[in-house]
Every structure is written in C-alpha cells, then in structure tokens.
C-alpha cells in the first residue's frame, strides 16, 4: 500500500496535464481538419475523429497499464524489448503492407500498426540500459561501436522500409549521448559535417575548397598566433600554385582548375609536412588531414546527393535551400501549408472555418500537417500556445530527468526529450518551410493509433520511472 500511495503522490501531474491537454487539442483539430458536413457526430467511427477517440481511450488505458507494471521491468527487459523490435522491423519488410510507398505497417484486418514508432522507445531503453551498466565509459571505442550499433541498426532497417523520415529520428540520440558525456569533438565534427553538407549543396565546389583552405589558414594562425609561419605557409601555397599553373600553361597539358589546385595543394602539403617535422610545428598534420577530409567530403556529398537520394528527396532539400522552385510539385505542399498557417492571422479564422483545410488544399491534414489546421483556425495565438506547451513539457521533462537518482531513468528521460523534441522541431519546421518535408507526426496531435500509443508509452514509461525515483538506486 505504501508503494501505491507513493506512486500516486509522486506522479508528475504537470506532465500528465500537459499530455491530456495536447491530446484533447489534437483531437479537436483533427475534427476540424477532417470535418465533413455529412458526418458531424463526434462518435462517427467512419471518420478519423471518431477513430481518434478510440485511439485516445486505448492510449489512456496503456498509460494505466504502464503504471501497473513493476519499474524494474523496463530496465531488466530493455535489451529483450529492443531485440524484439529489431525482429519486428525485419519482419515488416517481408510481411508488412505498403502505405504511402513505405513498407512499414503490419495489417490485421482493418487495424494497422507501425513497428518503427515503437522501435524508438526500445532504442531509448536499450541505450539507457547500456550506458547505466556498471563500468561503461562512453568515450571508448568499444562503447562507440556498441552505441553506434544500437542506434543505427533500427535506423537502417527503418530506412530500408522507405520511411526515411522515421530513420532520421535516430540521429537525435546524439543529444542523449551528449548529455552523458560524449566528447564534444565528436559532436562538433557532426555539426560541422552537417554545415558542410548544406554548403556543399548550395555553393560551388570550388568556392568550398577555397573557403576550406582559407579556414585552415585562419585556424592555423589562431592556434599558433604566429603570423610569420602563416605568412610563409601562404607563400608556399602561392608559389606552388603559380608553378603548377605555369607548367600547365607552358606544356599546354590542358588540365582543369580542380586538378591544378589539387596538385599545388598536394605540393604545398608535402612541403608543410616536411617543414613541420623539421621544425616541430604542431597540429599541421591534423589540420592537413582535416582539409583533405573536407574536400573529399564535399565531393562525396555531391556524389551521394546525385546517386543515393531519391529524386523527390533531392527536390525537397533543394526547395528548402532555395535552390529549386517547384510550385506545383513538392513546393506545393509546403506552400499550401504556409498559406494555411499564414492566413490565420493573429486569432485565426475560427473553429471549422478554415478555408484551406476545408477545401483540402493541405495534404495529410490530419496527420503530418495537423499544425496547419491549428495555424489557420487559431492563428498566431494558437500556434504560440502549442509551441509553448511543447517547450514547457520538454523543459519539464529535462528537469525531471535531472532529478533522477537512477542513471537508467535519467538517460531514458533524455531519450524521451530528444525524440519528442525532434518530432516537434521537424514537424512544425516543415509546415512553416524551415525544414525539408520529412513525413513524421506531431506527437499527441497527429491522427494515428500507432503514433499516439507509441508517444504515450514513451512518455508514461518515463513518468512511471520518475514516480518511483526515490526507490531506485541506479
């Protein structure tokens, strides 16, 4: 009995209230998004709002079930659950049905369920379990490999299903790792790669190479605070470039600019290395590796973009970066979404009066683009409210995670925060045109049994762990 009382008095009711609020608001907006004059009853189960009521009821049931289960269940069975999910992700490739070109659903009669939604929870649990294991240090190669596997295995499987959006979600676990001490260099490296990736698509290769060279010089100068050395290095580069140029010109070998620069760079690099060893100048080697690495990366980005991405994915990225204009195709959706949201004004057009949603201009209105309905019908006040609710929830969850004694609970908590944050950021960002169109749902708001149940589970497992935080030791 003591335990029972403890749980009830220790539940973070703020989170629960926020959850219920969002679920209900989500339901109201699904009603508006799918509203059909002929099926006005909220209990009409042929319409999505009727179905969503069922999903919500089941979700509340799931939340209760979560609380009944013993807390040690989650850490104890973390790997088992993870393994099961991996298995399901493999099975769905063979036995699943295709919805929207993604083979990621199991169908039982009229009932459909998506394992990839639940796999995220399993991964969070598995990571939490691994990192909370006694004697595990995060910054070792062994742990890097294991973590990489834990994260990339389900990501890859989801990617194979052709559900790229959900696959990308797994990258957000880096935030969890970051909190747990992942060395900052790796994170910086990751961020740098992303920036370079974007730049590589936007700018010409030549520009990037020149930029990279410039960057390296600056860094060199900064590290060594020695203008003289920097000047000499620059001189060497210029000389070797002139040389190569001259050779090219005289002998009319007709090489392209890239080759000329590479040769001169290679030349210079050689000279630098020799000088560095001779005069013991530090970090030169690392910087050179970095330089060449960036150049190689730049080229491979282009290669990757052209040969590994589907045309529609290429288009989406290009559209967001402003490289391509596709008003009736890919850009159409985002445009319509922005129009829908933008036309809401300060207070919105009113409940059920959104013309964009009414006339079905925005695709996937009740799922991925549910935010548009909010934007159009409730205006800026509405969107502000939703963003604020999410921020409050996320920050609250962080503070809950921090007050955990058990590292398992804390790590899992950060997993929850990261996943929710990612969905929130990408989904809303997509509807306002800041992020390429990646089809992932808005937690608690988007229509869908699988997504609602998965997010409910995700959240309530953590709330359960939090409710018993005083009893856990590690």
């Amino acid at each position, binding site marked *: 009995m003591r335990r029972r009382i403890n749980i009830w008095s220790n539940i973070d009711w703020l989170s629960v209230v926020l959850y219920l609020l969002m679920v209900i608001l989500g339901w109201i907006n699904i009603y508006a998004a799918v509203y059909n*004059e002929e099926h006005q009853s909220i209990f009409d189960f042929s319409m999505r709002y009727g179905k969503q009521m069922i999903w919500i009821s089941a979700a509340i049931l799931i939340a209760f079930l979560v609380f009944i289960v013993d807390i040690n269940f989650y850490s104890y069975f973390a790997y088992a659950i993870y393994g099961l999910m991996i298995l399901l992700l493999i099975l769905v490739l063979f036995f699943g049905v295709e919805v929207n070109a993604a083979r990621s659903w199991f169908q039982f009669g009229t009932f459909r369920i998506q394992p990839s939604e639940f796999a995220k929870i399993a991964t969070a649990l598995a990571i939490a379990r691994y990192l909370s294991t006694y004697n595990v240090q995060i910054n070792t190669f062994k742990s890097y490999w294991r973590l990489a596997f834990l994260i990339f295995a389900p990501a890859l499987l989801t990617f194979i299903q052709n559900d790229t959006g959900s696959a990308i979600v797994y990258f957000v676990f880096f*935030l969890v790792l*970051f*909190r*747990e*001490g992942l060395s900052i260099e790796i994170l910086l490296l990751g961020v740098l790669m992303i920036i370079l990736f974007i730049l590589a698509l936007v700018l010409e290769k030549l520009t990037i190479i020149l930029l990279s060279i410039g960057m390296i010089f600056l860094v060199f100068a900064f590290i060594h605070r020695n203008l003289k050395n920097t000047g000499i290095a620059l001189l060497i580069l210029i000389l070797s470039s002139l040389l190569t140029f001259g050779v090219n010109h005289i002998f009319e070998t007709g090489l392209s600019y890239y080759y000329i620069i590479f040769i001169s760079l290679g030349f210079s690099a050689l000279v630098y290395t020799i000088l560095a060893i001779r005069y013991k100048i530090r970090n030169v080697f690392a910087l050179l590796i970095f330089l060449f690495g960036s150049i190689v990366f730049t080229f491979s980005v282009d290669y990757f973009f052209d040969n590994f991405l589907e045309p529609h994915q290429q288009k989406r990225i290009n559209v967001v970066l402003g490289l391509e204009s596709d008003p*009736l195709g890919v850009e159409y959706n985002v445009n*319509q979404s*922005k*129009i*829908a*949201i*933008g*036309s*809401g*004004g*300060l207070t919105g057009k009113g409940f059920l009066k959104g*013309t*964009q949603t*009414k*006339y079905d*201009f925005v695709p996937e209105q009740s799922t991925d683009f549910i935010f548009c309905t909010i*934007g*159009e019908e409730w*205006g*800026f006040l509405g*969107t*502000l409210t939703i*963003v*604020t609710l*999410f*921020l409050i929830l*996320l*920050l609250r969850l*962080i503070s809950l*995670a*921090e007050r955990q004694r058990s*590292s398992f609970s*804390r790590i899992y908590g*950060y997993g929850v*925060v990261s996943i929710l*944050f990612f969905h929130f*950021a990408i989904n*809303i*960002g997509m509807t*306002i045109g*800041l992020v390429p169109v990646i089809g992932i749902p808005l937690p608690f708001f988007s229509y869908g049994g699988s997504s609602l149940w998965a997010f409910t589970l995700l959240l309530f497992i953590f709330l359960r762990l939090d409710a018993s935080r005083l009893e856990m030791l590690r």
Partner: protein
Amino acid sequence: MDTFAVRRYIIGLLIVFVGLVYVIRLFLLQVVDSTYKLSASNNVIRYVTQYPARGLIYDRNGKLLVHNEAAYDLMVNPLQLKPFDTTEFCQILDVDKAYVKESINRAKEYSGYKSSIFLKQVSSKTYAHLQEKLYKFPGFFVQARTLRKYSSDIAAHVLGYVGEVNDKVIEHDPYYKSGDYIGISGIEQSYEESIRGKKGVNVFLVDVHNRIKGPYAEGKLDKEAEVGANIISTIDVDLQAYGEKLMKNKIGSIVAIEPSTGEVLSLVSSPAYDPGLLIGRKRTENYVNLMTDTLKPLFNRALMAQYPPGSTFKVINALIGLQEKVIFPATRYDCNGAYYARNIRVGCHLHKSPTDLRQSIQVSCNTYYCNVFRSILDNKKYASIHDSFDQWQKYIMSFGFGQKLNTDFTNELKGIVPNKELYNRIYGERSWSSLTVLSLAIGQGELGTTPLQMANMTAAIANRGYYYIPHVVKEIEGDYEIDSRFTEKRKTLIDSAYFEIVIDGMDLAVNGEPGSGSTARSAHLEDIVVCGKTGTAENPHGEDHSIFIAFAPKDDPKIAIAVYIENGGYGSTWAAPTARLMIEKYLNGTISIPWWEQYILDANLMDITDEEKD
C-alpha cells in the same frame, strides 16, 4: 556523470532556441506578412460541370431537326459571397432586389458551401455584359449550358422535349444532379442515354477577384465531357410537315409506316404544338398553358388515344374467317340493309347484294361480317364459345392489338382487346354467345386501338402476314446500336395466301368503278394502286369519327398509313382523302388535285371556332 550536468543547460537552451526561432517565424508568417492571407482567400476551388452538347436529331434523309444553342446559368456559392452592389447587379441581370435576396436565401438553404443555380438561362447578351463585371461579385460564376433549338415547329410529339430532372429520377440515377436536363418525352426520352453524352468536370482554382487562376491539382480531378450521340430518325420531315399542315384545325392523328422495315415515316397528333415553346425561360409558363388547353395538345393521340377501330376491323375478321376456313373467297351473304338475328338488329347502308368476300370489303357490308364473326365463334371445331373466343383473341393479338408494341416510344398504350374472362364477369360464364358480342364484328364494342396499332396492322397486311415493330430511330451515330428487336419479323397467325384475297378487296374499295359501291374512291390515285379500308367509328358524344387505313402501291408497298379524324363523319369524307394526299405526297412528291388539297387544308373540324380558342 554529474560532471556533465551542465550540459543540460545546453540542451535546454537548444530547445528554447528552436522554439524561439519558430515563434518568430510564425509571428512573421501569420501576423506581419499579409501575402499569405491574400493567398489563402485567393485559393478557392470551384467545380465547374462540363455539360456536353446533346446529340443532334436528323430526319431519315439527313435533314437537321433538332440542334443545340448555348445558354448560361448564373451560379452562386454562398460560402464565397461577399457584400456587393445589388443595384448594379439587378440592373445587369434585369431582376429586382427581392428576387436577389430570395434566391440567395434559397441557395443558402440548399447548402452553405455548395454551389447552386441563382438565375437560369441568362441570354448571351446579358452574359457578355455580366462577364465584364463579374469580378465585382465574388461568389457568382457562370456555367455554360446548351438548350435545344428546333429547325421548325413540327414533330413535337415525335421529338419530345427536354426539361429539368425531378427528384425521383435523381434518387434512382446518381448521374443526374439537381438542375440537370433530361429528355421527358419522345426521342429525347427514349434515347436519353445515348443522346445526353457524358458530363465532365473541371476543377479550378479561383482567386479573390473571382477569376479562374488555373486548374486545381494539375487537372488531376478533371474529367472530359463526351458529346451526345447524334440520332437519325425514321421520320421524313417533308411528309411530317405536310401531315401536320393537313391536320391543322382538326383533332386526330396520322401514322405512316414503311412496311418493309417498320420505320415510322410520320407521326402526327393534332392539335400539336411548337416544340420551341418548351425551352428557355418561358417554358414553365408555356407548359402550364399547354396543359390547361382543353384540346390537350400535349396528349399524343397517335400513341395514347384508344378509339374503336370501326369498319377497318372487318379486314381482320375476314382474315380470321379465311384462316379458320369458315368462309371462302366466294362465300356470299345477302344484305337488305340490316342483319337480323333473334332480337338483334345491326344496321347497314344500302349497297348491292349479295356480296362475296372481296365485295364485302369494297362496300363495307356490316351484315356480311356479322355472319363471318358468328361463324368464327360458333365454329363446331371448338367445344364452347370460350375456346373459340380465346382463339379469336389470339389472332387479334398477333397483329399487335391489346398489348404494347414495345416500340421506342415511351408512352404508348396497350389498347383494349376483350377476353373471355371479361364477358364471363359481365354476363356470367354460361350467359353469353356470339350474338352478345356481335358488335366486335364491325369493330365496335369493347375494342380500343391506337392509330399506331392500326398503322402497324396495315403494315402487316401490306407485308402479307408479318410486321416489324414500329420504331422512330433509324440509327445512332457512334458506338450505340438500335435494339435488335426492331429487325425481327413478327408473324401474324394468318397464312400469307389469305392476305391476297383481302388485299384485292381493299383494292376494290379504292379503285372499284365509280358507282360500284367502293367506299374509298376518294383515296383513288391515277398512277398508283392504293389499297385501303374506310371506317366510321360511332361516337355517342357527337359526330362519328372518320377513319381510314391504306397502303400503296399494292405490290411492293412503300407506305402503310392510318388516319383518324375525330368528329369527321364518314371515313370517306375526311380520312380517306387525307390519306390519299399523304400517299401521293410521299410517293410522287406533288399533288394532282390542288383544289381538294386546299379544301382539306382550310377545313376546320374542331368543335370550337378560332375565336373561342383564343
């Protein structure tokens, strides 16, 4: 682990940062930047139905009878309505403000967000004027329609008319929506499915100035309209026009069929009306006028008037008698002006006596046929009158009487042919005999035939024993076929040899020497052998009806015709010369007795005078 606790602030800051960026972006998007607001109110979808042109109707020689004319319906969508200058609006459309208010309310009642018709069939001039100013009236748009246009004012009953579809039809057939047109009678109705084509739809994006911006969803939802199939009818327009002219100021009907194919050459019902009255905005008003006209011009007498056939029926009884072998060509009966049996007397007119079979047709002797009829029914071959009457009824029905002929008209009537059950009910099973029903011998009594059925019978006689179901459409252009039932021979139950005898009699009736008693001399033509039979149907309410059936030429007949003229007196007085004129017109093209033609054209046999009618 706690050494990294400070990182939580970084993560927290990251989250807040993203949230802030989004809020700013949203603020810019929703509050500051007004382009999206305009864009949104711009993006309104409009479904414009593409109504295909209805198929054209031609006569058998390719002359155009019915075609289409453009018309415009003004539509309104209440959801897209904004306040507008009603004065200017009313001025352009020539309606009053009350109408505008009422119609908008009506549209709102129908649906808050679906389009409905605001004003029907706006003229092209008004349409042109309106199009210029339409940007001032958001929520209104124009839908193009086609209306029927008739080349002339004839053949209204054959062609039928087109009107708005009613709720019952909409319930049964989802193709139709409120405001659609549908054929309501005649060819327009019978061939509705092929003649209407297929509706299409264009989905447009419309901007805030009520202009079409372009197709919605790249035209993915668009459907092409299919034009209606053209119809070639069997009608000969010149003959039809002539028939209607002849029947002006008379009440009755003419039906002419080509016996070798069953194609209806002409179908006249008088009084008729101008089909052009039933199109356009004045339609309702005109329709009410036509409906309440006491002469019932909308009533298609050719298909729906059930008259007693009168003496024309004698030829059938003659054929039955021959088939049953109760009479022979040489059979003679005396006639002294009447037929007597027990306490029955059937009067006849004065003519030579006795007559054989052929002569009996020539002079139309009632006595002869009372005898024939009784012989048929009292035939010892049958156990009782019930059986013999059954057989007699079968013969009759094999000519197409007493049932619908299953033509491609939609409103033909069955006619009336009595059966033994009827008489059993009236008189009691054992209480009737051939004498009781004697009037059937001369085509009176419980008999009702429509002019179409009579013409069909005449065609059967002309063919010497079979007919094709009369039909009014020869061909449908495109992928449609006319029904195969129209090309199947329908045999009567009489052997074809017997027809020759009766035909000889009909020949005599028309072409017998003057003074020999031929009742149909008024149908005689110099160069063509016309065979015919007069009839005079008793009318207890007034003057008898004048009937005549005929076909010509005797060998290889090209036209079979039945003429009914109500209150026309003897068959030979009006019906026969009318038929003769029709035949001559069709076969020769010119009329050899223009003075008689004029006489018939000018005659007015209606009960009321012209002044009274107006």
